[in-house]
């Protein structure tokens, strides 16, 4: 690691972007926000309220980006930990102000890099992080009690990062960062019952939130992970409906375990998308905050304002981007990012223009960061809270999205969320949505530039990201060596403990952290949970459990 890189990570706290100017580009001074002629109008107070006040339709905070700028995110992940570290350094030196890591599909699905079937995929679409040692390598010198790390990774991220913190001799209570514990969305987004059965997925989510809230209150939980649900095939109203169905069911189960809504809700943040219809997306963010606030207050009896005030982490839509003439995607992502900011999100990651082509090139990544800097400094997207509030159109759309979401949530809850997932109802809903979209594209009723109209005849093949696989190969060898050199007795006992706790129906997260401290791998820990739930150790049936769980 170079000295320079250590400095970049060391100074991360100072990289936060501040609003550079409150006057318009032409020099007119602006206020924090603007409101109706008659602020005492009861309709306004009930449905909208000023920014920062219930039901938070107009924003989570009174001064919005004047008081705290959004976090400019740019996710990184490829190859071995060493490769991804290099990518992180490039982002930070471009002016990104967060560490946002995406792991490869193997790690995401808790498959070790030495699995016989998937060798070609190790590190290809994200960073390979099978053990806590690998996370330690990636975040060498990064103090996890001071620096936020955001993991685009479901339930296993938390116990693994927590294990790194514990190994470094730090108390869990000081652990900072975030992950996305939502496993049900994984079941729906192509993992299926085979990788994560609905009941097991839901239990893991509840287990992780419970453990994190009780033991590391500074760790944030991206829940629901509505981004993937929406990308899988939902409207903006559908995103709210299904996401709230997840929240309601999860909250009910957490309350049944003795937690209160005010202990849980402040740790949650909604992981959302921003699609191409600018006004509809702005309306969605506004309707979403109102929906959340009302639900927390009326359904769960929240008292704490932090429970009712929803924070939103936004990643712009990947599936809205087009392969042909990929530079057009810069136009799309600029509008989508602008919608997210007009909608008042707390963090924003804008897709790179080459998203439909490959893992982002360094140039595309740089442009994505510049785009947010242009929005912040030149466009004035951060200047005034809820800049579109009061627009007749946007207010009507906000109400319409909310009403559609309400109707759909009622339908889902009538069936019961878990039943609707395991019996295929939700999947069919999403398939129907996608089929309708495709038919409209085929019929020309819906037009996308470069997809079904204005398609360029000939164009050169787009540049794609490549990287040297040497580190990855070394990383896999290192992983296999670790399996030989680790303390075998400690490792075995730790995995048995994971299995036993899970089998008894208890919360296995603590035991999972211990197992990662004992150098167990992500595949071994998850495999032990699977076995405890009566499933095959390896969902692909290629591996046997490496130990006997009977003591």
């Amino acid at each position, binding site marked *: 690691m170079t000295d320079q890189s250590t400095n970049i990570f060391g100074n991360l706290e100072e990289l936060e972007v501040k609003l550079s100017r409150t006057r318009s580009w032409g020099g007119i001074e602006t206020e924090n926000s603007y409101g109706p002629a008659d602020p005492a109008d009861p309709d306004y107070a009930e449905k909208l309220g000023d920014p920062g006040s219930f039901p938070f339709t107009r924003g989570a905070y009174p001064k919005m980006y004047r008081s705290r700028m959004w976090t400019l995110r740019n996710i990184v992940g490829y190859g071995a930990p060493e490769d991804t570290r290099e990518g992180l350094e490039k982002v930070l030196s471009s002016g990104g102000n967060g560490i946002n890591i995406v792991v490869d599909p193997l790690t995401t699905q808790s498959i070790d890099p030495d699995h016989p079937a998937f060798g070609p995929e190790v590190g290809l679409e994200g960073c390979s992080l099978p053990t806590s040692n690998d996370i330690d390598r990636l975040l060498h010198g990064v103090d996890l009690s001071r620096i936020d790390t955001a993991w685009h990774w479901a339930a296993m991220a938390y116990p693994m990062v927590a294990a790194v913190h514990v190994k470094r001799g730090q108390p869990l209570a000081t652990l900072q960062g975030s992950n996305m514990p939502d496993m049900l969305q994984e079941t729906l987004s192509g993992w*299926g*019952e*085979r990788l994560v*059965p609905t009941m097991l997925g839901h239990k893991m989510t509840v287990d992780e939130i419970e453990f994190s809230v009780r033991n590391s209150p500074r760790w944030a939980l991206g829940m629901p992970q509505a981004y993937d649900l929406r990308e899988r095939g939902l409207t903006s109203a559908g995103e709210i409906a299904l996401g709230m169905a997840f929240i309601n069911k999860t909250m009910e189960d957490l309350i049944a375990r003795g937690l209160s809504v005010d202990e849980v809700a402040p740790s949650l943040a909604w992981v959302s998308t921003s699609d191409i219809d600018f006004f509809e997306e702005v309306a969605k963010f506004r309707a979403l905050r109102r929906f959340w606030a009302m639900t927390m207050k009326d359904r769960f009896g929240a008292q704490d304002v932090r429970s009712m005030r929803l924070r939103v982490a936004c990643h712009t839509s990947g599936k809205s981007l087009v392969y042909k003439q990929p530079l057009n995607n810069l136009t799309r992502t600029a509008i989508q990012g602008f919608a997210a900011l007009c909608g008042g999100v707390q963090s924003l990651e804008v897709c790179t223009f080459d998203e439909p082509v490959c893992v982002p090139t360094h140039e595309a990544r740089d442009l994505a960061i510049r785009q947010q800097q242009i929005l912040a400094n030149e466009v004035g997207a951060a200047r005034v809270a809820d800049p579109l509030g009061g627009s007749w159109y946007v207010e009507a759309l906000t109400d319409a999205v909310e009403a559609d979401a309400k109707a759909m949530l009622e339908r889902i809850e009538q069936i019961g969320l878990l*039943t609707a997932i*395991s*019996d295929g109802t939700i999947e069919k809903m999403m398939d129907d949505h996608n089929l309708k979209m495709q038919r409209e594209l085929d019929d020309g009723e819906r037009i996308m530039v470069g997809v079904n109209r204005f398609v360029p005849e000939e164009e050169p093949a787009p540049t794609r990201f490549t990287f040297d696989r040497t580190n990855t190969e070394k990383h896999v060898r290192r992983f296999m060596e670790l399996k030989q050199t680790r303390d075998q007795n400690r490792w075995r006992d730790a995995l048995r403990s994971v299995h036993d706790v899970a089998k008894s129906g208890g919360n296995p997260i603590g035991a999972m952290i211990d197992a990662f401290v004992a150098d167990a791998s992500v595949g071994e820990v998850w495999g032990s949970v699977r076995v405890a739930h*009566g499933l*095959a150790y390896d969902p692909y*049936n290629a591996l046997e459990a490496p130990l006997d769980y009977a003591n």
Partner: protein
Amino acid sequence: MGAMADRVLTGDRRAAGRLISEAERREPQALQDLGILYQHGGHARTIGITGPPGAGKSTLVDALITCFRKQALTVAVAAVDPSSPISQGAVLGDRVRMMRHADDDGVLVRSMATRGALGGLSTAVGDAITIFDAMGFDIIIVETVGVGQSETDVVGHCEAVILLQTALGGDDIQAIKAGVLEIADLIVVNKKSAPGSDRMARFLRESLHDRPARPDGWTIPVLMTEASEDIGIDALVDALMQRFDHNGAEDRVSVTRRRQVAAHLMALADVEIRSLTQRLVSGRAAPEAWQAVLERRSDPWTLSAQLFEQLR
């Protein structure tokens, strides 16, 4: 002559797959191969599974395969899904639920579409069973698309018919009253953790109790499973084995065999008769007799009688 049959008899799965397609198209050469293969069969135990959509039929098949494979028995499956009545196309998705057996050489799954024509599916299923049986599979499972007359025909090829039910969906008990009980040799209430399952099993046992004893002396058991978690499957397999043993008794073997062969023959005849009649009404066969009916010089009753004279 019989080249495909020879390949199938050596266990050539490519030939078996191809022959099923050819049989579905009623290609004359394929029918000869089937005739040869028929003489090599009769060893496999056959299980039919019927029940309403969503009852978990594919999941149950998956669980049964797991259980039979543990006993080192080989399993072939004919899984039926509906064709679109508009496009004639289909999405045959049953394999997804049986994926854990995808790499297992002792398991063969063939997806079949209903393809609309009456009798056609039942014929094709009977033919597929003939092929799997000749290949030496120990167990053959036929999974139908739902409940109804055509499904009754399809599972009629099997010596042990499982009617799968769940307590989910309010009108199931009504559906059972409507007569699907007639075809079942075993009744299984799946998703047994769903509320109302116990009540449903009790209702089924009582309904069966009120009915006259079956001529073959078999008592229909009512079992409960949670197929997605492999729960209750061992007991179901035990019951299936009892059913096979029951059928195997000297005086009963003919009863079951007769039912199976009758199902196949009825299906074949159905297809042939429809095909003949189709040719007749399209004017391709016996155009004069047909023309006579059209011109009211003859009548449908006479023509029909002429058509089937030889069979009478």
